[in-house]
């Protein structure tokens, strides 16, 4: 009975790396364009909102609005990069390009493939998040020495959102459904979770909602790190993100097994 589900789980701790390397090799061929594409949006938000609104708002939480927003943009861009890599890249590799079909004829299991895709999506999240962190630091809105602390939080954000997106592609019949995920889940989350303004501005009920959402926990880890402040409840935030990751990973692997291994 159990054995039936073996295919949905990773076979060992390293098989996934072959999938990661395949994606890395493909990405390298268009790395520059991809990097620019990934960074352009959060950058324009940072400069547009940051300097525009920043003039009117002045200080938030005892820091300049741009510095406040920068951390929000790092977390958001990690979320968006991981999600898009999964719903567009991995979905294409699963369906149209039949890359997964080929891989599933080898020693790898479906679980290995999913894990490799998650690791790759998280890598793209780290690239995007780190890119913005570096720009923010160069402009003086983040503390250089704190970057190493922000990195693990960005990576965890990437894995968590890649896993959630994996559930979405396991269920979505076509690309059209991804728009719903973005407009109904990701975009509202950006507003609710303190990326653009402090959560404390929200009505208390919405604050409670925000507490359950993964992006809020990412931001609570990334913002103090970038601003070189002491973070509170690190264990809780890490725990919530890990929980999202593990549950979504298992659910997506089982759903994908049902979808692909009929």
């Amino acid at each position, binding site marked *: 009975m159990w054995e039936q589900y073996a295919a949905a789980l990773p076979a060992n701790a390293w*098989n996934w790396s*072959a999938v990661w390397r395949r994606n890395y090799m*493909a990405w390298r*061929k268009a790395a520059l364009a991809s990097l620019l594409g990934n960074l352009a949006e959060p950058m324009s938000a940072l400069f547009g909102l940051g300097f525009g609104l920043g003039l009117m708002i002045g200080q938030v939480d005892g820091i300049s609005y741009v510095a406040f927003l920068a951390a929000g943009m790092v977390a958001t861009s990690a979320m968006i990069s991981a999600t898009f890599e999964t719903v567009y890249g991995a979905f294409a590799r699963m369906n149209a390009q039949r890359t997964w079909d080929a891989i599933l*004829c080898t020693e*790898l299991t479906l679980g290995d493939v999913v894990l490799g895709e998650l690791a790759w999506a998280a890598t793209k999240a780290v690239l995007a998040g780190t890119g913005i962190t570096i720009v923010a630091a160069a402009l003086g809105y983040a503390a250089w020495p704190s970057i190493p602390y922000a990195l693990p939080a960005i990576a965890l954000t990437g894995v968590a959102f890649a896993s959630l997106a994996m559930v979405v592609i396991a269920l979505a019949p076509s690309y059209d459904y991804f728009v719903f995920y973005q407009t109904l889940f990701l975009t509202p989350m950006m507003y609710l979770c303190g990326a653009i303004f402090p959560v404390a501005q929200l009505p208390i009920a919405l604050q409670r909602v925000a507490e359950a959402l993964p992006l809020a926990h990412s931001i609570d880890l990334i913002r103090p790190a970038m601003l070189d402040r002491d973070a509170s409840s690190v264990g809780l935030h890490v725990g919530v993100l890990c929980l999202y990751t593990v549950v979504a990973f298992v659910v997506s692997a089982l759903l994908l097994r049902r979808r692909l291994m009929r």
Partner: protein
Amino acid sequence: MLGGVEAAPISRQTIAMEPAPVTPADRGAGRVSNVAIDFTAVKKSYGEKVVVDQLSFTVASGKCFGLLGPNGAGKSTIARLILGMSTPEAGKITVLGEKVPARARLARKRIGVVPQADNLDLEFTVRENLLVFGRYFGMTAKDVEKITPSLLEFARLESKADARVTELSGGMKRRLTLARALINDPDILILDEPTTGLDPHARHLIWERLRALLSRGKTILLTTHFMEEAERLCDRLCVLEAGRKIAEGPPHTLIDEQIGCPVIEVYGGDPNELCGLIKPLAQRTEISGETLFCYAPNPEQVLARLRGRTGLRLLQRPPNLEDVFLRLTGREMRD
């Protein structure tokens, strides 16, 4: 292009794998067996539709086993079942001594696959495709680089090593897929219509390659719609219809059993009228489209009866697997 079609003999040493054929039985680490694949009463359905129905067959190590059957008969589904990519509802599947699908991953270590539809990585070159695929078997870049030249030679793609897959012709892609299937030096090859869409040169080249693999002790499971291919390569055939086995045996035994006499094909004229005319002289007649097939132990009598009628083209030939296929699976188009 398909370099010299004269097919230079392949020198064993240059082909990727170890020179001496090692039979899977030698390797099975205690699991000595000359059975490569075993199906016992396997059943699989999609919704209401039964796609594989109480199917049992055994593929012996080192042999080429052919699956024949009309479109939709279940051949590709059987290939997926062997790989553990699909779970049967009933029955038992054993591949290289491993229970499938439970331990399919271990079986897949020693299997190479040419799927019905190409799934090469279009973003990569020929060489990169081999590299990426080798990694899925735990090979290092060095391991893959070492055998790449021999795989390229095997597939006659030496001059295309650095071409992107999108630049290859259909036949080249098929050959690359075959080379890719050999990267882990498999004991079993699962080939799902490996030559569909290829020109005759390319097909002959692939046949020659497959025979070389058989002579090195590989086991092949082949599905095909080319009866000539099945007749040339397969030691044993299983004819399927709607997921059920309707005949099994060596090609020539099947031909003798099912047909057993010369065939006359008659084109032109009204097949129904001609059929009435020669029926008494024939063991069996069948009409397929505009052609009348006449199976007659004494073909001379049939030819004599038809002589003098104008506008007919007559062809007398020995029976072949196509006759068997047509007889067993009916002549009307399925679906």
